[in-house]
């Protein structure tokens, strides 16, 4: 049972425009959410996170929004750059446990 869901498997966006990735979750026991970025033949690298007590966290070009009542989070990348082309995974941590549940990932292609 997929507790973290990422729809729209791929996204193409022009360089300089905004990329928006969405993630939905079903488990109310998740208390911490993360986005990871993955290039081919490499492991995922941590990008940005948000605690369930917040609704927004910003780090440079990356902003994560959390809507706890809707069990929805999104990642905004603005402006998008060609180096942002990668697979992005949404992940959630179970309260009291450090294991992560991951979505299936979104492929982002930034067109120069």
């Amino acid at each position, binding site marked *: 049972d997929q507790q*973290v869901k990422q729809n729209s498997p791929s996204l193409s966006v022009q360089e300089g425009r905004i990329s928006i990735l969405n993630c939905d979750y079903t488990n109310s026991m998740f208390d911490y959410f993360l986005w990871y970025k993955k290039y081919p033949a490499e492991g*995922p690298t941590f990008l940005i996170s948000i605690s369930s007590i917040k609704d927004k966290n910003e780090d440079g070009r990356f902003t994560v929004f959390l809507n706890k009542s809707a069990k929805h989070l999104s990642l905004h990348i603005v402006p998008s750059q060609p180096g942002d082309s990668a697979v992005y995974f949404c992940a959630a941590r179970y309260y009291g446990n*450090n294991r*992560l549940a991951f979505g299936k990932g979104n492929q982002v292609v930034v067109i120069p």
Partner: protein
Amino acid sequence: GAGVSQSPSNKVTEKGKDVELRCDPISGHTALYWYRQSLGQGLEFLIYFQGNSAPDKSGLPSDRFSAERTGGSVSTLTIQRTQQEDSAVYLCASSLDGARGTDTQYFGPGTRLTVL
């Protein structure tokens, strides 16, 4: 500094054979995790080691899977009597202190396992 390393990077084996996958975590990290990513799927949690505590094995899919962590550092994931559905990329991650909860997990490049 050195990141998480895994070996081998690729492993092809025949159905029914045993395989061992190795993970070297970042030096000083007390927490170590194994995940796997099957084709078209997200990362699936397998097992988590925290210091000297008993590991969280709740993600292991069957008793053919086992893992150990020697001396609180290197870890080996063993799959016995491999099946074709075991084909996946096996990823190892480590973090400074898993008990802190908001610890960042740093991933290795993974081992791509193909079972023929």
